[in-house]
């Protein structure tokens, strides 16, 4: 119901009104916004150009002001960015009130913790002292270990981490509390064989049991630090539900209890004998090193030292907290700040500390500069090869950088010199971080990009970032891959976490296999598990599926050949080992005989999935992960733009068909150029049809016709549809504009020009027939040419015609130019459309999947009945903007990701306050951007709601001038957001019903009348979202198409569109009509509420209205029954039934 109001409100009113209409019909988020506007803020929220008085502008500046102005000018692109950053910081930092709440709760918890009762000393494996209500947060693997444990009150409880540093940010406020386990509980050899981690878990369980008895504590859950099961933590919430912070209780050994040198990355602290339970003959020196185990223990040991270090650093740099907060926001938008092996806030602080210590940034810099410098550092430093250390002068026992690099993929050493803080991070994650940083720096330096939004405000979820995604579902299979990859000692090091053990190996395997095909391989960071204190720790296999993202290299990703080294080179063995039986010797055209792998893929839609074949093959071959575990999401959406051409039974996604059309056009264009005997020469032949820029949803297909299906026209013998038969197949005319030379021979009169054009059409047709035997049909407005089974519609254009249309003589004899619609329409058809077509054709050459994204987008718009509001050209421009200005992403590399971003653009772009600038051919400079924006702001109210500026069109937004209206745009935004949500959920979650066509089926209950059409008369039925299993015969027959000659087919005859046009002409002021032009079998109708207000009798407004007389006054209202009857009459044989959904018109 809500939607209906939104749509049906006076559509002529193009100007968005601010408060009156928004309040009720907008999406919840917007409604919320406008409510706050109305309620609290007195601020004027409409932008006015600033008017400062002369006095204000020219008064002598104070030194202070001068400095400030100069600073903003030199440091920031503009003061806007600085202010934006400040506002953002205000949003994420904690308020004083919140801090007060947190402080008091910390006090409560601390007090409670101090009073933990003591218990008797027991064996570690004896859990009888715990009441059954609380479980130990630890996976006991292997079951037993030696050692004694007893519960005693903590030696100390301290607040650590981001909260005392002031770098804590909203949301998910976490306050870390370190509880020191007294030395009396621990024993000297506890570092070995998981004794300490188990005691730590027991101690936490003890604390949890004690806390659970208190009423001052809300819910309690266990989690583990960054997914490391050796470091469980206890999450404590305050009792009142609405407070949104959590206290995270860590247990740690007393400072200095263990010697750090014990945890050298090459030392062993888990004995194979204990772990496997088997007697081995290995001596201690032969034991494999356990770097990850060591670093997790070290991490506990150094908790407090790190805090001291950071607070010392941050106290010197006033902007430290702000810098960290910005960096955290940046990381969070990129999903890099949480989960196993993440780059968390702690690392962000350490990074800034490192930059400060190495004097890469100075203490006086602002938060903005801190962020910029740290991104610059990340972009330019490869920690996977050249680790950095915070330790100034590490003691002699500290390991060297080389030692760290041997043991870990990413190296960033802490101030003590013993701990690698990036121990769990995979090389892929770091590469991702690095790429993100360098891409961010690019956007930042580009004055045409809104750096603030792309860096800090736009989320980059994996599904919208990566071109292809795949998921590994049954994680338990990783166990067998560990076995296959022979990773026992690594498994021991990771304490049985087979996922983390196998992951780096699988990643490097895939990286090798995909090689040049991808720019980047990313993987999701498994989220920290959380479970209630009453339940056992979850198993590793209970984790959600691991997702991997591929950022494709469009040039190479779809290549079907993997060419290896020559057969006799030493590298051949390596190649064979990688590819296994798929590798074979091949001889190439250049005479070389090399190892090679050939993947299947004949057509573009299959070639796009070559990475899938590679991944499946490699995982099966090397990691024992069967294909059934792999969920590859790369081309899930291709289905809806696939056409099953009946002729050759091949299902294609349109790239090849478009190519056929373009080639036929090129040939035609050549032939036109070559024509002689024309009175004037041709100056340009330009395509002006989406099919000629690869963006036609279903490109025209060459058709061979079955003549017996048709009637014949008497004189010309052209085909004509036969009554009683199904509507013949629709033949799309492909528009081609043919400019003729300007000359004095052209008349200077609109009607005469029209006739001369017709003469040209006749002449061109005759010549084409004579020289090339093409069947032609000249009309006054165009010339249809049948060529290769396709139909081209040539329109002759004369460049001065719009001018002639505009000219008129004023009474004084002065020649006046008056713009009019006719001239605009002509310019659109003969100038702007061809230009757009050629420009976008160029874009397709740069980005292979541009066309496919456009086609998906337009399929969606059509299916949701929006194709009349967001026109084809506007949709193509929207998609073009995704490729030309992808910030914060990079240009889409697959149709799927492009489409998701299209939906996101539609739903999240602030159409009210911003122009969408599509920088075709990069013709716009930064100055142009400002000019466009200022012009837009100054005359916002009179401009189209959806404003798209292009290099040739700074001020008018040609393509969206007519539509959409405010209400329709609102609806589009709403539906796009919903579609995106549904789609992302389906794509990312294999357990959902997998039917992506859901987003293409519009709800019909929102409309007043639904006109059901007879499928027999819908020529494009086969292109419907849910095409019928059996289609009607439409007069086509198989076999190859004759390139020329033959009878003129039925061109551009589509009963649905004719009917729709008639309905709009007859009832356009009473109702809106919607239809899916691509095979839709319903036309939906929405009454305009305004038309249903009783109006006084006026001769100009009585169409389809009844009259009612009250006293002396005659009032009119729509004659609904007759109108519904007219729907049936006007669409005789096409309309199956007219279903009135609502009774709204009953006055």
């Amino acid at each position, binding site marked *: 119901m809500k939607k209906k109001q939104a749509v049906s409100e006076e559509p002529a009113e193009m100007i968005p009104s601010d408060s009156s209409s928004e309040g009720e019909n907008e999406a919840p988020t917007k409604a919320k916004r406008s409510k706050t506007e109305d309620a609290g803020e007195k601020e004027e929220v409409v932008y006015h150009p600033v008017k400062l008085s002369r006095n204000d502008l020219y008064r002598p500046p104070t030194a202070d002001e001068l400095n400030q102005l100069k600073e903003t000018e030199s440091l920031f692109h503009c003061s806007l960015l600085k202010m934006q950053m400040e506002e953002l910081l205000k949003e994420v930092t904690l308020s004083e009130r919140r801090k007060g709440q947190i402080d008091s709760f910390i006090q409560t918890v601390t007090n409670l913790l101090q009073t933990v009762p003591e218990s008797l000393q027991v064996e570690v494996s004896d859990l009888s002292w715990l009441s059954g209500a609380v479980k130990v947060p630890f996976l006991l693997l292997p079951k037993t270990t030696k050692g004694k444990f007893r519960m005693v009150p903590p030696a100390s409880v301290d607040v650590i981490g981001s909260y005392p540093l002031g770098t804590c940010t909203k949301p998910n406020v976490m306050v870390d509390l370190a509880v020191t386990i007294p030395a009396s509980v621990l024993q000297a050899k506890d570092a070995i064989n998981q004794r300490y981690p188990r005691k730590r878990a027991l101690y936490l369980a003890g604390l949890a049991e004690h806390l659970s008895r208190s009423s001052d504590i809300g819910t309690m859950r266990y989690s583990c630090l960054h997914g490391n099961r050796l470091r469980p933590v206890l999450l404590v919430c305050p009792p009142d539900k609405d407070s949104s912070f959590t206290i995270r209780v860590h247990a740690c050994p007393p400072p200095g209890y263990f010697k750090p040198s014990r945890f050298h990355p090459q030392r062993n602290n888990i004995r194979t004998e204990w772990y496997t339970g088997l007697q081995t003959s290995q001596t201690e020196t032969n034991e494999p090193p356990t770097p990850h185990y060591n670093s997790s223990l070290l991490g506990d040991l150094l908790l407090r030292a790190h805090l001291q270090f950071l607070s010392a650093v941050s106290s010197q740099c006033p902007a430290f907290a702000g810098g960290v907060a910005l960096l955290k926001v940046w990381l969070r938008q990129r999903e890099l700040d949480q989960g196993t092996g993440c780059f968390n806030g702690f690392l962000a602080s350490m990074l800034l500390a490192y930059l400060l210590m190495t004097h890469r940034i100075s203490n006086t810099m602002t938060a903005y500069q801190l962020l910029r410098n740290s991104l610059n550092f990340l972009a330019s430093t490869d920690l996977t090869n050249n680790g950095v250390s915070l330790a100034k002068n590490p003691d002699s026992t500290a390991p060297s950088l080389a030692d760290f690099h041997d043991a870990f993929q990413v190296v960033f050493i802490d101030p003590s010199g013993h701990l690698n803080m990036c121990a769990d991070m995979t090389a892929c994650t770091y590469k991702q971080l690095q790429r993100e940083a360098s891409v961010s720096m690019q956007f930042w330096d580009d004055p045409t990009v809104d750096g603030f939004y792309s860096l800090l405000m736009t989320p980059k979820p994996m599904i919208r970032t990566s071109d292809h995604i795949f998921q590994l579902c049954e994680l338990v299979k990783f166990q067998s891959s560990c076995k296959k990859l022979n990773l026992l000692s690594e498994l021991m090091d990771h304490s049985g976490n087979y996922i983390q053990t196998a992951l780096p190996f699988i990643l490097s395997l895939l990286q090798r296999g995909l090689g040049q095909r991808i720019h980047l391989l990313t993987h999701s960071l498994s989220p920290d598990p959380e479970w209630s204190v009453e339940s056992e720790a979850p198993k590793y296999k209970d984790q959600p599926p691991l997702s991997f993202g591929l950022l494709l290299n469009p040039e190479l990703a779809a290549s079907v050949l993997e060419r290896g080294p020559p057969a006799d080179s030493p590298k051949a063995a390596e190649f064979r080992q990688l590819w296994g039986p798929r590798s074979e010797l091949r001889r190439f055209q250049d005479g070389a005989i090399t190892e090679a792998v050939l993947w299947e893929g004949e057509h573009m839609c299959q070639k796009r999935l070559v990475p899938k074949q590679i991944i499946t093959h490699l995982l099966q071959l090397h990691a024992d992960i069967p294909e059934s575990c792999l969920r590859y999401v790369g081309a899930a959406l291709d289905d809806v733009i696939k056409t099953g051409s009946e002729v050759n039974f091949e299902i294609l996604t349109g790239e090849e068909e478009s190519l056929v059309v373009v080639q036929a056009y090129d040939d035609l264009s050549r032939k036109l150029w070559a024509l002689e005997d024309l009175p004037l020469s041709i100056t340009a032949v330009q395509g002006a049809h989406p099919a000629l820029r690869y963006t036609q949803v279903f490109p025209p297909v060459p058709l061979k016709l079955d003549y017996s299906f048709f009637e014949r026209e008497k004189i010309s013998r052209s085909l004509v549809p036969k009554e009683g038969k199904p509507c013949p197949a629709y033949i799309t005319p492909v528009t081609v504009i043919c400019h003729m030379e300007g000359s004095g021979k052209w008349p200077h009169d609109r009607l005469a020009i029209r006739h001369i054009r017709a003469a040209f059409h006749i002449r061109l047709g005759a010549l084409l027939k004579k020289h090339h035997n093409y069947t032609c049909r000249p009309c006054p407005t165009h010339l249809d040419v049948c060529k290769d089974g396709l139909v081209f519609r040539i329109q002759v254009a004369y460049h001065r015609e719009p001018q002639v249309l505009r000219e008129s003589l004023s009474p004084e004899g002065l020649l006046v130019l008056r713009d009019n619609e006719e001239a605009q329409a002509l310019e659109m058809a003969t100038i702007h459309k061809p230009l757009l077509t050629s420009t976008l054709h160029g874009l397709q050459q740069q980005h292979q999947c541009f066309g496919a994204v456009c086609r998906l987008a337009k399929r969606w718009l059509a299916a949701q009945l929006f194709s009349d509001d967001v026109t084809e050209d506007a949709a193509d421009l929207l998609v073009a903007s995704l490729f030309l200005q992808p910030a914060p992403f990079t240009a889409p590399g697959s149709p799927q990701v492009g489409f998701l971003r299209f939906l996101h653009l539609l739903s999240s772009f*602030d159409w009210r306050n911003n122009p969408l600038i599509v920088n075709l051919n990069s013709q716009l400079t930064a100055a142009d951007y400002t000019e466009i924006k200022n012009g837009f702001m100054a005359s916002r109210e009179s401009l189209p709601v959806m404003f798209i500026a292009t290099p040739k069109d700074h001020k008018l937004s040609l393509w969206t001038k007519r539509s959409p209206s405010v209400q329709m745009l609102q609806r589009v935004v709403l539906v796009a957001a919903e579609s995106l949500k549904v789609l992302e959920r389906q794509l990312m979650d294999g357990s959902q019903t997998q039917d992506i066509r859901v987003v293409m089926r519009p709800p019909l209950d929102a409309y007043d009348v639904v006109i059901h059409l007879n499928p027999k008369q819908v020529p494009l039925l086969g292109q419907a979202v849910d095409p019928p299993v059996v289609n009607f015969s439409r007069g086509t027959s198989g076999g190859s198409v004759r390139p020329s000659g033959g009878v003129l087919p039925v061109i551009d005859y589509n009963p649905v569109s004719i009917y729709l046009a008639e309905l709009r002409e007859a009832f356009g002021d009473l109702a809106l009509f919607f239809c899916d032009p691509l095979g839709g079998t319903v036309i939906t109708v929405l009454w305009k509420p305004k038309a249903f207000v009783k109006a006084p009798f006026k001769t100009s407004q009585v169409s389809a209205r009844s009259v009612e007389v009250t006293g002396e006054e005659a009032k009119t209202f729509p004659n609904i029954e007759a109108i519904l009857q007219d729907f049936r009459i006007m669409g005789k044989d096409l309309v199956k039934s007219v279903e009135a959904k609502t009774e709204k018109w009953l006055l």
Partner: protein
Amino acid sequence: MAPSKKKHADDQAYLIPGGFTVLSLQFSSDTAARHSLYVKEHRVRAEKSSGRPMDRTLFVLNIPPYCSEGVVKELFSQFGVIQSVELLDHPGSVQESGPKLAKIFMPPAKQGFKVGYVVFKKASSISAVKSHPHDVPLVVCTEERQVKTGVQKWIQQYTESLIQPEKLQEIVDSFMQDYDKRKEQEEERQRQEAEQQQEDEEGWVKVTRGHKGAKARPHSEAANQRTLQREKQKKKRKELMNFYTWQHRNTQKEHIAELRKKFEEDKQRIALLRAQRKFRPY
């Protein structure tokens, strides 16, 4: 619809305020719903010339799209012999301008509800129409007179749109001949005018307001503006920038003013954004 039937006797004409008589119209005898036609004698004094004699012309409103001129003619011929029928999108007169065009060169007609001017041979037919009982509908499509709609009509339209190139050529040729003739006439007229401006025997020149002929510059609005602009630019080019000290000082002052203005603008933009809650990162 309902209200009309209640208030009036069924077999009477239905007159509404404004002087219109309501006639009901049915597509065929088996369709239930009816449209109402509103008719009145044509009485506009301004239009004397057009073929709408005041006493014999019936003004008809709300003619459904499926009624062509022929259909309307037949519908009303039951009231008297009809001279002509004219269907328009809006009430008023048509501006007959320019030469006559072939049908195929006309822009496609709108398929909406129309108004009609029906001219009867006799004035008495008007009153016959106005007394037509309301409940006896005019039927558009009958056994004898099939009106094609929907798919049938579209196929017919498609067939009609096919035109032989030869025929098209003929139309074009005849139009262009006509056009050339008109142009010649125009030129002839101009030539005569020019001749008139020649000196006559006694040395007098007849001066008229300038027409085509020798002109200094194109006589149009755009051209005028272009010239103005060009002169302005020329003036600007002559000035020297930053030459005198006061000029330099002024430039600096302008720069600061510019910065200030930008700062104020940005402040306002921020206020706007803040009002829209644009700073929540997630």
